[in-house]
């Protein structure tokens, strides 16, 4: 793709009090894609996002939003950005409308008519003139998105956007994010530690753990590559020995063996087993959930 990336992060590092928290993170977002930022608690998702939005300064590395460097062209870069970092914290003593007016006034390029557009987009028309302190978490989340969309950004950054939402809310948020990416050609960076969520919502994922990106790929690719074959055969020890000579074998639950999926070689392996007198009772392929993948990539580090 020859388009300029909507967001470009290169070799980002951050040291806090002598501790290396982010160790060289790089990725790019193309326009119109939803990019997942997946990692367990304390992986450094929020820290990376804070650097992207200019709240903390990186120890090294560059960040470009719409081609503008966040450090050297801060105001230009911020014009292309909308974000919610962690919780959508708005002014509780102002009404939703006043909150939006407040942020509209901070950017002279936003016309007042834009307010009604974003309010309609997030569906807050009925409560917009109430104080934010009377809002439910879901409504605050929507208002947060409304303020992020005010400036018609190219890049939307949402840190755990479904945090605290009920299943219906999560589903709605997911569809909303997909719709934004599709209809407005917005690039969305979504961080989460919920794998199911990322799997359903994102085009591509970066898996981050302990401050480094372990893998970046499309969700489909990541899953396909990790496709497995489950064997049930007897006697299991003999089967294992034979298969080990061909490929890597692990023992699964319920007396099964697991090998990688390798289509052209599969009949061969089967033949060898049969010749050695092993009874192959079952042979099936399995797509791992992103969860398994995640556990494997992060070396079994706990999540959730």
């Amino acid at each position, binding site marked *: 793709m020859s388009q300029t990336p909507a967001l470009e992060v290169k070799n980002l590092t951050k040291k806090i009090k002598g501790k290396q928290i982010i160790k060289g993170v790089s990725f790019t977002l193309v326009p119109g894609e939803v990019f997942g930022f997946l990692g367990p608690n304390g992986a450094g998702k929020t820290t990376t996002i*804070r650097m992207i*939005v*200019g*709240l*903390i*300064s990186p120890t090294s590395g560059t960040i470009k939003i719409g081609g503008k460097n966040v450090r050297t062209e*801060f*105001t*230009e870069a*911020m*014009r292309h*950005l909308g*974000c919610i*970092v*962690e*919780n959508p*914290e*708005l*002014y*509780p*003593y*102002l009404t939703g409308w*006043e909150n939006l007016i*407040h*942020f509209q*006034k*901070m*950017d*002279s390029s936003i016309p007042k008519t834009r307010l009604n557009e974003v309010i309609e987009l997030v569906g807050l028309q009925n409560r917009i003139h109430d104080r934010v302190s009377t809002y439910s978490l879901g409504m605050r989340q929507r208002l947060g998105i409304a*303020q992020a969309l005010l*400036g018609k950004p190219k890049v939307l950054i949402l840190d755990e956007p479904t945090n605290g939402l009920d299943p219906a809310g999560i589903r709605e948020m997911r569809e909303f994010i997909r719709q934004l990416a599709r209809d407005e050609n917005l690039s969305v960076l979504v961080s989460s530690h919920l794998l199911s969520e990322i799997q359903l919502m994102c085009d591509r994922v970066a898996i981050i753990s302990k401050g480094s990106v372990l893998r970046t790929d499309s969700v489909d690719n990541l899953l396909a590559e990790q496709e497995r074959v489950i064997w049930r055969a007897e006697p299991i020890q003999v089967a294992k020995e034979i298969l080990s000579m061909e490929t890597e074998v692990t023992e699964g639950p319920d007396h099964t063996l697991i090998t990688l999926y390798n289509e052209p070689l599969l009949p061969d392996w089967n033949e060898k087993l049969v010749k050695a007198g092993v009874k192959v009772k079952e042979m099936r392929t399995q797509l791992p959930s992103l969860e398994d993948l995640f556990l494997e990539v992060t070396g079994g580090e706990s999540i959730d």
Partner: protein
Amino acid sequence: MINLVRNEMLKLLRKKRLYVIILIIAFLVPLFTYAQFKEIQDQREKMGNQDWRTTLQQEITDTQNRLSSSRIQDEWRKFLKIRLSQQQYYLENDIDPRAPGAPTFMRIFVENSIDLLLPLLVMVIVADLVSSESSGGTIKLLLTRPVKRWRILLSKYLAMLLSISFIVLSVAVLSYGISGVVFGYGGWNMPLLTGFTVSGDELLTENVHIVPQWQYILMEFGLVWYVCMIVGTLTFMLSVLLRSTAAVMGIMLASLIAGAILANMVSSWESAKYFFMVNLNLTNYVSGMATPIEGMSLGFSMSVLAVWGIAGFIVAFVTFSKRDIY
């Protein structure tokens, strides 16, 4: 920038702090008016039913007698002369110096509130100006706009300047308006003495002169505004440095009260005069009261305050524009 300042003013108004301040002042002024009224009544009772003109005439004769004595120091003679001309002025113009009008009340009120009450009110407004954004998390939205950080902080500083001016103005208006009901609204042109300087135990009077009360009041309100701005700036700095509004208030409160206590006991600890909090009582220099520490003068105190203020301003802006926000 105007839009940013408007935002800050909107937030200030919605937090209702300014109303509270106005209410506090509107509650205190009648209280002090009553106290002042009682005091005047007391004095009147002591004098009996004597006409104030007779009393004043007696005082004038007394002063004249002392002036004619030859063993009097030159300095003192000059002071007495000024006092004499002041007393004569009162008599000629039929002004009762013991029956203060609203302007006199204003003057006394502001002289007594400059070192503690007004700084406290200022602190209430300024303490959470920045810290509330940090502790409430709204700072994350504020600083991810296409506006440079120092401009955001400057808009807050300007909002503070406006609020302080508003507080000082309300003190003036409320104290004049409310006390006038009791004391009457006249007395703007009453002559007052100013220009005293203190050197050691002596009161130097070579610069003493008479100014009409309105000018005197204007001068004092200028000084009050200055003190409030310095206290405001220092509170502002703490508000940038600390996330907790309570901590900001605690530190400010402790320093202000320490200042009030120190002023009464540090006369021998000379370097204490470089603390900002012992220099707050600027109106004392106008009325010629003794200073807490030797070597302090209006110019000195104003410079000390200016240094503290400028340092606070710089610290606030430098940290705010560089700091990492977690």
